[in-house]
C-alpha cells in the first residue's frame, strides 16, 4: 500500500472513530434536553436531535481531514522529496460526490423535517380550530395579560389545562415583544397592530414553581423591563383547571360587583 492510500485508509478509520465519539456526545446532549411540555415541542426536539445526529458525521469528517493533514505533513514532505510532486487541481469524483451529498442533505433537511414540522406546527393554525381553548396573550411594556374570551376571565399567570390544544392570539399594545415558553419550545412575536397566532398542545402538568423553563418569557428586546418580562405558567390537570376557572370567575364577579 502506497503512502497516499495509507493516508486515505487512516482517515477513513479516524472518521469512523470521530463520528462515533461525536454521536456519543450528541446522545449525551439529547439526554439532557430540558423538560418538554407540548406536542409541538416534542416534534421540535426530535428535529433538533435528528439534525445533531446527521451533522455530527459532517463535523467529524472536516475535523478528520484537518487532523490527518496536519499530522501527515512530515510524511508529505518526505514524499515530495523523493520526486517532484504533482498536485491535483480538482478531483472530479471527490468534488462531485461532495456537491451531490451536501445538496442531498440540505434538500432532505428542507423536505424532511423542515416541511413536516411547518405543516404540523404552523399550517392551518392561523385561526382557532373547533375545540381549541382560545387564550389572548397581550404584551405591554412590561408585562403580560392573559384573557380567556370563551370563559370570560383574565389572568396575570398563564393557567392551562393539560392535554388540550391551546390557541394563542398574541398581540402587543406598544413595541414588539415575543411570547415564549421554553418548555413548549415555541415562540411568537407580539407586534403592535397585528394578531399573531400560535397553537400549543399541552402534554403534561407542569408549573413554573417546579421548573423554570415552564415560564412565559418575553424574547424580543422591548426596552428596560425586557429581561424580567415574565409571567408564571401553570399547566393543571383538566379538573383542577376547571376548578381554577370557576374560582376566578366568582372572584371577578365579586370584584366587579363590589364596585
Amino acid at each position, binding site marked *: 500500500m502506497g503512502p497516499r492510500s495509507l493516508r486515505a485508509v487512516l482517515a477513513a478509520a479516524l472518521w469512523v472513530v470521530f463520528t462515533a465519539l461525536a454521536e456519543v456526545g450528541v446522545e449525551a446532549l439529547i439526554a439532557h434536553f430540558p423538560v418538554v411540555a407540548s406536542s409541538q415541542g416534542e416534534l421540535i426536539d426530535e428535529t433538533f436531535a435528528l439534525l445533531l445526529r446527521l451533522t455530527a458525521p459532517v463535523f467529524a469528517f472536516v475535523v478528520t481531514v484537518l487532523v490527518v*493533514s496536519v499530522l501527515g505533513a512530515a510524511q508529505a*514532505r518526505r514524499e515530495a522529496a523523493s520526486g517532484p510532486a504533482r498536485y491535483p487541481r480538482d478531483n472530479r469524483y471527490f*468534488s462531485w460526490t461532495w456537491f451531490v451529498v451536501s445538496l442531498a442533505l*440540505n*434538500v432532505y433537511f428542507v423536505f424532511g423535517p423542515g416541511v413536516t414540522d411547518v405543516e404540523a406546527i404552523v399550517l392551518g393554525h392561523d385561526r382557532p380550530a373547533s375545540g381549541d381553548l382560545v387564550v389572548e396573550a397581550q404584551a405591554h411594556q412590561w408585562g403580560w395579560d392573559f384573557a380567556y374570551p370563551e370563559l370570560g376571565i383574565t389572568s396575570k399567570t398563564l393557567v392551562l389545562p393539560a392535554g388540550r390544544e391551546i390557541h394563542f392570539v398574541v398581540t402587543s399594545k406598544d*413595541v*414588539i415583544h415575543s411570547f415564549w415558553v421554553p418548555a413548549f419550545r415555541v415562540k411568537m412575536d407580539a407586534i403592535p397592530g397585528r394578531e399573531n397566532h400560535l397553537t400549543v398542545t399541552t402534554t403534561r402538568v407542569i408549573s413554573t414553581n417546579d421548573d*423554570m423553563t415552564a415560564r412565559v418569557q*418575553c424574547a424580543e428586546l422591548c426596552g428596560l423591563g425586557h429581561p424580567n418580562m415574565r409571567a408564571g405558567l401553570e399547566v393543571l390537570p383538566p379538573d383542577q383547571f376547571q376548578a381554577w376557572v370557576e374560582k376566578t370567575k366568582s372572584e371577578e364577579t365579586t370584584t366587579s360587583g363590589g364596585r
Partner: protein
Amino acid sequence: MGSALRGFLHAPLLRAVVWAAVGYLLGAGATVGLAGGSFLDDLPVIVGYAVALLAWILGIGGWEAFVVPWFGGPYRLDEGTGRSRYFRFNTDHKVVGIQYLVTALATLLLAGGLAMLMRLELMHPGFQVFGGPEMYNQVVSLHGSLMIFAVAAVGIVGGFGNYVVPIMIGAEDMAFPRLNAVGYWFVPMGVLAFLSGPLLGGWESGWTAYAPLSDTDGTGQVAAVLGILTLGISSVTGGINLLATVHHMRAPGLDWRRLPVFVWSMVVTAVLNVAFVPFVGTAMVLVALDRVAGTNFFTKDGLPLVYQDLFWIFGHPEVYILILPGFGIVLELLPVFARKTLYGYRWIVGGLLAVMLMSMTVWDHHMYTTGISNARLVPFMTTTELISVPTGLVYLAALGTIWGGRIRLTTPMLFALGFLFNFLIGGLTGVFLADVALDFQMQDTFFVVAHFHYTIMGGMVFALMAGIYYWFPKMSGRMYNEALGKVHFWWMFLAYNATFLPMFWAGVLGMNRRVADYLPYLEPVNEWVSVAAFTLGASFLLPAVHLVYVWARGPEAAMNPWASRTLEWTIPSPPPKENFREAPAIVDFYDYDGAEDVELPLPPRPLPMPGVPVPGGD
C-alpha cells in the same frame, strides 16, 4: 500669530476637528434657533452632525482635494510623508488600507472591552455592574453596532481590500484614489457617532434597531442612525472603487480566470455592499423621519414589520459581507502554507458567486417568528438551507488543498485552520436555525448569540488575524515573533471555544438574549462563560503589545518570507508608492507543484490552465 501655531492650526486633523466642532455648533444652534427645543433633541443633533460631517471631510483635505479644483483652483493637496501620512487625506491605497485596519482594530479592542463589562454583569443573576437594565442595554447595543459596522464590515474589506487587492492585480493604486481617501475619513466619524450615543442618553434597541422601539427610544438612537449612515457611505464608495479597480486596473495577462481568490471574494463583497447597504440607509432615514417628522412608517399604527424586511434585505447580505472576505483570506493562505496547489479554483469562484446571489434570497429567516405568512416560511427555509451548498464548496476547496500537503504551522496558517474549525460550528448551527420549527425555539436565545459569534468572531476575526500575521511583513517590512504569534493563537482559540461553545447550551436551557438579568437556574453556565470570556479578552492584549513593538523594532523581513506566489510578494517590503517598478509577470498563483518547502524566490512558470493563453503570449 506665531508661525508654529499657524502651522499647527493648519495640520489637517486639527483643522478637521475644529471645523467639525464649529459646524456642529452652527448646525445645531441654527436648528434650535429656528425650531426651538434643546440642543440634545433629535433634530438639532441630526442637523448639527450633518454639518459637522461635511466640515470634517472638507477640513481633513476634501477642501483641497475636491472643492478648490472644482472651481478651477490649483490641485495642491499635501499628503504628508512618513507617519504623518496616516493622519491625513492620503490617496495611497496602502496608507488608506492601514488607516482602515488600525481603526478597525482599535474599535475591536474597545468593543471587546465593552463585552468584558457585559460578561461581568452576566456572571451572576441580578444587577452588579450597571445597576440596572438601562445601561446594560446601551452597552450591548454599542458593542454590537461597533462590532458589525465598524469592525467586521471594515477590517478586512477596508484594510486588506485596499492594501492588498491593487497589488495582487498588479495595479499601482485604486481606480479612484481620492474617493478611496475620502471614504476612509467617514469611518472615524461613524465610530464617534456611535460613541456619542451614551452621551445622548444611549439607545437600547440593539444593532438591529427594531422599530417601533427605535422610534420611541432616547435621542441616543439618532446617534446609531447617523453612525450607520456614515459608515454606509464608506462601504458603498469603497465597493464602487473596488469593482472599478478590479475591472479596469488588472495587469495585462491577468484575466478573470486567474484572479487570486481573495480578489474574487472582495469582488462579490463589493457587489453586496453596493447593492444592499442602501436598504439599511433607507430604513434608517425612515426611522429618523418617524422620530423627527412624526411620520408613521414603523410606529405602532404604521408597519413595524416592514422595518424588519428592509433591515434584513440588507442584513443578510451584510453577514456575507462580513464572512466572504474571510473565506478569501483563508483560501489564499492554505496553498501557501500547505505548499500545495489550490484545489478546485472553479468550484470556489462558482461557490462565491452562488453565495453572493443566494444571499439576496434568504432574509426572512430572521423573521420566522414574526407571524409572516406560510407562503414565506417554506421558500425562505429552502433558500437558507441550500445556501450551505455553495458555502460548503469553500470547505471542499480548503480540505482538498490541505489534504496531503506539506503543512507549515506558522501563525497565519494556525489562524486559517482555526477559522475552518470555528466557522464549521457556526455554519452547521446555521443549518439548525434555518429550520423554521427549530427556530421557533432558538430565535432570540443564546443559541443564536453563540451561532453568530462563531461565524463573525470565530470566522471573520480569526481570518482577520490570519491576514494580519500573513501580510504583516509586507506592510511593515518587519517580522513578528513566531513564538508569540503561536501563543496568541492557542490562547485565543482555546479561550474562544471555551467561551462560546457553552453559550449554545445556555440557549437550549432557555436563556434569552439581550438581558441584563436572568433566572438563577442559569447561573452555572453563565459563570463559566464569563470566566472564559475574561481569558479570551486578555488574549487580545498579547498581540496588541507584540505587533506594535515589532512594527517599530522587529527584525527586517525578507521580500517573500512565505515563498508565496501572489504578486504582492514580488515587490519590496514595504512596497514603494507605485508598487511595481516594472510590469509584473503573471504566473499561476497557486502552482506549488514540485516547489521546495521554502524556496526563494519561486521561479515563474507557464500556466497549466487549459485554454488560458500563456502570459506575454497575448
